[in-house]
């Protein structure tokens, strides 16, 4: 039986690198991103390698879109891995909390916090059936208190708490939940955080693939509830 992964924010950056890496391991993929052009071109590239890919463009903050994603996974036979990777940064250049427009913060929470939970809720029957794994992509901004990163960081800090709580709640159903801070990477989002700056000294998202390879090889119970930093020297499992 093939394995299936659903990745949000999959047309570029970390999401795209992970999609390519999983396709290479024969995962079937459901991919989503907001821009249909980029997503379709990317999905076509992977499909040409002989892999099953369903690409559904749309906004993860939209409940109907989330349902379509889960339905797409169902057509592929089920779901083993959900990667909540799609995130928004908020205003670029970054602004301090004292100036962060509340509607911008609401949008951050809708995409970075509510959408992942919505997808978990919608995909749970499929994930339970396969004893699947949920990965919520976090950030060091969730713990850093960095100036300008307050809105984004708060959304990720709250997402971290959702991850640990879900891990406890879903343990009985055999579903694992981990939070992953991929670390600084050379991505479009990182460039948005540092507009006009040279970020070429940051590694490409591929640098985190060994971590993903490791994570997917672990027993659910050994990793669930933990928060990993993909670029750390050591990744530990439960004792």
């Amino acid at each position: 039986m093939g394995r299936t992964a659903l990745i949000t924010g999959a047309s570029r950056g970390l999401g795209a690198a992970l999609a390519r890496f999983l396709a290479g391991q024969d995962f079937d993929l459901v991919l989503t991103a907001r821009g249909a052009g980029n997503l379709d071109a990317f999905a076509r590239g992977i499909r040409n390698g002989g892999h099953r890919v369903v690409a559904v463009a749309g906004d993860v903050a939209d409940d109907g879109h989330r349902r379509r994603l889960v339905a797409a996974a169902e057509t592929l036979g089920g779901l083993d891995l959900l990667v909540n990777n799609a995130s928004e940064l908020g205003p670029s250049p970054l602004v301090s909390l004292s100036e962060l427009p509340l509607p911008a913060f609401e949008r951050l929470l809708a995409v970075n916090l509510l959408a992942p939970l919505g997808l978990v809720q919608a995909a749970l029957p499929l994930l339970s059936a396969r004893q699947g794994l949920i990965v919520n992509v976090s950030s060091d901004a969730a713990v850093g208190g960095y100036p300008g990163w307050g809105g984004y960081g708060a959304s990720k800090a709250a997402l971290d708490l959702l991850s640990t709580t879900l891990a406890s709640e879903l343990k009985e159903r055999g579903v694992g939940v981990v939070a992953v801070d991929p670390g600084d990477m050379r991505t479009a989002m990182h460039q948005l955080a540092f507009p006009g700056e040279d970020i070429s000294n940051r590694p490409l998202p591929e640098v985190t693939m060994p971590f993903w390879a490791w994570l997917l090889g672990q027993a659910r119970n050994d990793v669930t509830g933990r928060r990993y930093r993909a670029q750390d020297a050591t990744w530990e499992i439960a004792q």
Partner: protein
Amino acid sequence: MKPLDQSLLAGPKLRSAATPPEARGLERDEVRLLVSTGDRHEHAVFHELEHFLPAGTLLVVNTSATLPASLPASGRFGSFILNLSSRYGEQLWLCEPRLSAAHPGPLPLTAGETFEVAGMSARFVAPYPGLPRLWFVAFDGSVEIAMADEGEPIRYGYVEPPLPPLSAYQTIFAERPGSAEMPSAARPFSRRVLEELAWRNIAIASIELHTGVSSLETTDGGGEPVLYPEPFIVPAATAAAVNSARRDRRPVIAVGTTVVRALESAWDGHQVNAASGFTRLFVEPKRGVHTIDGLITGFHDPNATHLAMLHAIAGEGRAAEAYDEAMRNEYLWHEFGDSHLILPRIG
């Protein structure tokens, strides 16, 4: 840290052990032992080890056993060998494809291409980021069965026929198979050495770290070298033994750099904890070592990560002196070669 110590490369030519000591008429524990204490170097034989270890010493060893990790393979460009490095999952390993034992290649590989290995189909998934000689490989069948049927221990060009069997690549401490290459620092340990150590109340604790293929990285451009992670376990009993030795100021001696990496990975800034996972911790002088006082190791190619660890333990100057001393005295290099005990300075 300097990328490579050029004086080591430019110095007298190092001598490789091309065969195990048993094939040279020696017992395992009859290889030579260079004992470096600060700036003093003594020449001994390994089975005299007990005389150099202070009373109360705790030795920490690696119980990982060596796999027959070298498999015959064939692909688009003909036959090659696939050396398994680290297991990531039932069907995913990090591997080093090589033209032959002596020739690393490079092979003209592309992601997604399929090949045959030991009778099953496999696929190159992606190169390891920053280490393009290593590839993630997805297998269609059982890697364990392939190793049992057709695997050989990983051997390099300096090993001469008759090729040593897998048993030559196991240490006396070997328990669970998982290493691509023998954790060779413990190779000279014998039954009689263990008896002598027990007689002198020198305790032995263990970790498990499954080694990958040997590192050939350099720190190009002054950055940190790219290390790939290896599976490790520090059991609670070992953590307790190390912590208690340190509290009592008894020396902790690591048998092999794998032990140093495992213990340092389990160090939280105050003590060693039970730990399990993957580690690629870079032990270098700036970070320092916190868990061990000395090291038993072999003599290896002066690659960046190995040297950095020696520098962290012995100091850069002292480590270079010891290597000079070993080369002047024609010590033998590599996994079947001679041994080096680095002790803390007394006082």
